[in-house]
Structure formats: structure tokens, C-alpha cells
């Protein structure tokens, strides 16, 4: 037994686990009968199907015929900067307002780039703020807290 395709092995296992979780949770809902199905019926069987498909993929990864591959390395800094900037944008939006939150978003996400420059990022953030203000606040009249809440309150 040898794992030839790491990608298939890992994704297969992932499907099995997710399938089982979905099927298990479905058992806590009413299953009903085939004629009058409850909310648990469809997701239960889909979960089972997913787990079976996952098992097939996993086994395929062990077969001698499968192509050898490795899971490529994660670029953790990019993932964390990008995801972090988005999450932080959500956290501060209500208090800091749109304009400042966008600065936070643009600056932190820009850290992910290999070629970060202060000046370029400031210009970029200002331009994006203007576009966002004109298009969304002024043009489409979407409801936003635009300025920090301690200014307007």
C-alpha cells in the first residue's frame, strides 16, 4: 500500500468525512417515508453518496495505476493576509465606517504582495475609496455607515 496521489487521497478522505457528518446530522431530523419525505431523507442519502464517492477516490489514490502527485505547498502568508484583511474589514466596518475600513482592507491585503510599497498603496486606497463612495453610496444609494460612528453620533 502506497499513497501515489496525495491530492486524491486527501480530497477523498475529505469527502468521506464531510459525507458522514452530513448524513449523521441528517439522522437527527425527521426522515419520513419514501412517499412523504421528511427533511432528513434527501440530505442523509446525499451524505452517504458523498462518503461512497470519497471512498472510491481514496482507494483510487492507492492504486498502482493512478498518477503520482503531491499536494502543492500552501502560500500561508498570502492566505492569512488576504483572509485576515477581509475578516478585519467585517469587524471594524460598523464602528470605523466604510472609508476607514476600506483603508484597513487595502493596506492589510496589500501586505500579501511580494512588492509592497507604502506610496502606491495609499494612492490605491484613496482611489478605491472615491470609486466606492461614488458608485455605492452616492450612485446606488446603498446603506452604509460611511464615517466612524464616534464622529457622527
Amino acid at each position, binding site marked *: 500500500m502506497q499513497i501515489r496521489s496525495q491530492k486524491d487521497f486527501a480530497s477523498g478522505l475529505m469527502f468521506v468525512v464531510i459525507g458522514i457528518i452530513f448524513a449523521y446530522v441528517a439522522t437527527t431530523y425527521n426522515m419520513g417515508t419514501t412517499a412523504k419525505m421528511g*427533511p432528513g431523507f434527501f440530505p442523509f442519502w446525499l451524505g452517504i453518496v458523498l462518503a461512497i464517492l470519497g471512498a472510491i477516490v481514496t482507494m483510487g489514490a492507492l492504486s498502482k495505476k493512478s498518477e503520482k502527485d503531491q499536494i502543492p505547498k500552501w502560500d500561508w502568508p498570502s492566505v492569512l493576509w488576504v483572509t485576515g484583511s477581509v475578516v478585519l*474589514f467585517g469587524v471594524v466596518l460598523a464602528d470605523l465606517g466604510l472609508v476607514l475600513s476600506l483603508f484597513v482592507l487595502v493596506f492589510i491585503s496589500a501586505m500579501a504582495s511580494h512588492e509592497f510599497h507604502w506610496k502606491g498603496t495609499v494612492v490605491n486606497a484613496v482611489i478605491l475609496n472615491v470609486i466606492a463612495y461614488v458608485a455605492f453610496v452616492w450612485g446606488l444609494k446603498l*446603506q452604509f455607515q460611511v464615517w466612524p460612528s464616534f464622529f457622527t453620533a
Partner: protein
Amino acid sequence: MELLDNLALGFSTALTLQNLAYCLIGCVLGTLIGVLPGLGPIATIAMLLPATYALPPVAALIMLAGIYYGAQYGGSTTAILVNIPGESSSVVTAIDGYQMARRGRAGVALFTAGVGSFFAGCVATLVLAAFAAPLSELAFKFGPAEYFSLMVLGLIGAVVLASGSLIKAIAMIVLGLLLGLVGTDVNSGTARYSFDIPELTDGIGFVAVAMGMFGFAEIMTNLEQKENRETFLDKVSSLWPNKEDFKRMIPPILRGTTIGSLLGVLPGGGAALASFAAYSLEKKTSKYSAEFGKGAIEGVAGPESANNAAAQTSFIPLLTLGIPPNAVMALMVGAMTIHNIQPGPQVMSSNPALFWGLIASMWIGNLMLIVLNLPMIGVWVKLLTIPYKHLYPAILVFCCIGVYTVNNTTFDIYLTAGFGVIGYLFTKLGCEGAPLLLGFVLGPMMEENFRRAMLLARGDFSVFFTRPLSLGLLIAAAVLVVIVTLPAVKKTREEAFVEE
């Protein structure tokens, strides 16, 4: 002539000032994102969905449709000038288009792509108008069992024609279906998989899924690669082809349009597949096949016509049957639902102005696009000089604002961030996001029709096999699976996608 009356209605709808304006906005945005690599129509349409709330439904759909086929025009510009496909559907255009540019014929290549797309767009609009009515008639004969089987066929078709591993793609569909079921069950009122999180009882917002998996994940993947582009931005001189070029581009445009129109209708078809098919056909049949890969004009004309034709005919299954054939159309389902329009055969009768207006707008949009793309090519070329380090924060900004405004809740922002990481994980594991999105949109519809069919049949599973239409659809799905697993087909299928 009923068709003419309908088209007249369509044009009278599409030619109002407001609708013309939104058509133009859609086309400009489509060209823009088509030109910019790393930003596709899926992420853009998802981004703009919330912004269409305030618009009348016709205007919203006209604009969103314009983004999709506009992207087919813009994608070729980048492919030809920078050798990076702006869209997945212009991957093959890059092969010969870029070589033409290296030989100083960038202008001719751009002209060919533009004219080919325009011709294909006009024909596809007519195909759409002609086939929509009869298909809608057929759809009215469909009961829940037929709809369920049709969705099975659609989903299977979507993965059969896609690249990569078949089983993994089916698993991604099932995962998508399951994610689509999260939220309150309409029949019993039970909140499923919401784990007492109030935001989840309404279900997972599909804007969050689409944006996370196609916007954020894409950014993270792109950031791994260092920028390295050789460009021919200054070398766009004469656009006009010579007589010989004209003679050589016409047959591929006709063939590309035919292939594209056909493949667009198929489940799982769409622009990218059509351009691949057209390129291989041209390469195999052309008497200049030795020139392919070195700047053959056929290699630009065929695929570019095909991708635009397919982008438009893929609206046929959506508008007539209510079944999205690809991920972009899945988003259009979302757009229609937002505006309380249930996609399906009844749209044509209950909302004729919307239906025919959308079709007519596509022809108008194509006209706008050829003007936008040929005389104004210089403007778009300038855009390519924007470095990615400035571009991706902009994408993030518009994604965040877009997803927030769907429900005015920051929960959706976190959800999108989560799906971004999941989408990144999927790319690393070689799992494709498009089947998941398709399954996600079809999940609730599929369950609903399944339950209804079983209720009508009093719990007898054989209903799917005893009704002839339903049986036919299921057999077609089974045949598709068998065909791809045949060793000979499997091999060519793998080869066909290697170039990606």
C-alpha cells in the same frame, strides 16, 4: 410571423434609454474584466448582484448578461497581446493570437477576434430566439420526475465535459447539493445544518460561495505566481486584414459559430469548452495546419467565434427549462430569484417583455461591444499596464462591499472569507469549484422535485424509470458517464485538457 412580433417587443424593451444604458454598462464591465486576467465573469456577476437590487429586473438581467458575453470579447485582447488568457475561454486564442502579435500582426488578430465574435453573437441571438419558444412548450410537459431527471442529466453533463477527474467532480456536485440544503426546509420548516446560527437559517448565501471560491481563492492562487509578462502593447498598428486574411477567416468563423451555438446549449457546455472544440477542429481540418501554433488566423477566428456563440446560447436551457448549464448561468438563476422571477418555461409567457428584451439586448450589446473593442482598443490596452498588486486589493474591496450589501450583515463577509480558504484548499487538492457552485444552486430545486415526484408516485422509486421522458433523460445521463469512462475517449479527453 410570431417570432418577428416577439423580437419587435424585445427591441422596444431593450431600446429604452435606461435599458440601453445598463446594456452598455454590462458590456463595458464585461470587457474590463475580460481584459484583466485573474478576474472572471463568475466573481464579477456575484459582486454586482447586490447592486442590481434597486434596478428593475429587465435592466438587471440585461446588464449581467452583458458582463458574460462582454468578457468573451475582452478576454481575447489579453490573450493576443500578453499571451495570458484574460478568460478561461480565450486560452486557445492565446496560442495563435500571441504568435500573430509577435509577427507584428496584433491588429489583424484583434480585428479577427472582434468580427468573429460579432458575427457569432448575432447568429446565436437568432438561435436563441428561434429555439426558445419550442423548448418552452416541451418544458410544460415536464412533471417533477422529469425535472429531477433533467437536473441529473444537467449535472452529469456538466462534469463529463469539464476537465479533471470525473469522480471528484461528481463528489463536488454532491457536496454543492448538500451545501445548498443548509437552511430552513420549505416543507417542514425545520432548520437544517444551521447549528443555531440565525444567519444560517436562511441558507448559505450563494453570493458568498461564488465570491469566496472564485474571487478570494483566485487571488490567493494568483499571488503565489510572480508577474512576468512579455507584452506587445505598443505594437497595435493596422487593424485591417488583407484580402487573403479575409478569405481565410470566413470559414473558421462560420464553423466556430456552429460549434459554439451547439455546445452552449449542452449542460456543462459554455464558452470555454466551445473554444477548445473549435480550435481542435480548425487545427485538424485546416489546409494550413502546419501554421497552427505559429500564428494561424484560423486559430483566432474559430475559437473566438465559438466562445461568444456559446456564451449566448447557454441562456437557452436557463430561460426555457430553468436549468443552468454552467456556473455563470447558475448565478443568473440567483439574479432572477432576487427579482422574484422563477426561471423556467413560464418566464416567456408571464414576462414576455423581460424574455424578449433580454434576447434583443444581446444583439444590441454585441453591436456595442464591437465598437468598444475595435476603435477603442487603446483604452483597454492601457488597463493591462495596471500591476496585479494594485488590482487585487480593488477586487477585495468590491467583493467585500458587494457581499455585505446583500443582507447588510457582516456575517456574510466572514462566510465569504471562509469559502475563500475552502476554495484555496480545493485548488490545492485538484478539486474544481464550478461543479460545486452548480450543485449548490440546484440543490434545493432538486430536492423539491424529488420529494414531489415521490409524493405523486406514493413512494414508488420506479416513477423515474416508467415515465418515458424521465427515463430518456436518465439514459442519456448514463450514456454520458459510460462514454467518458471508455478507455479511448478517456485518453483523448485527458489530452484535450492538457493544454490548459
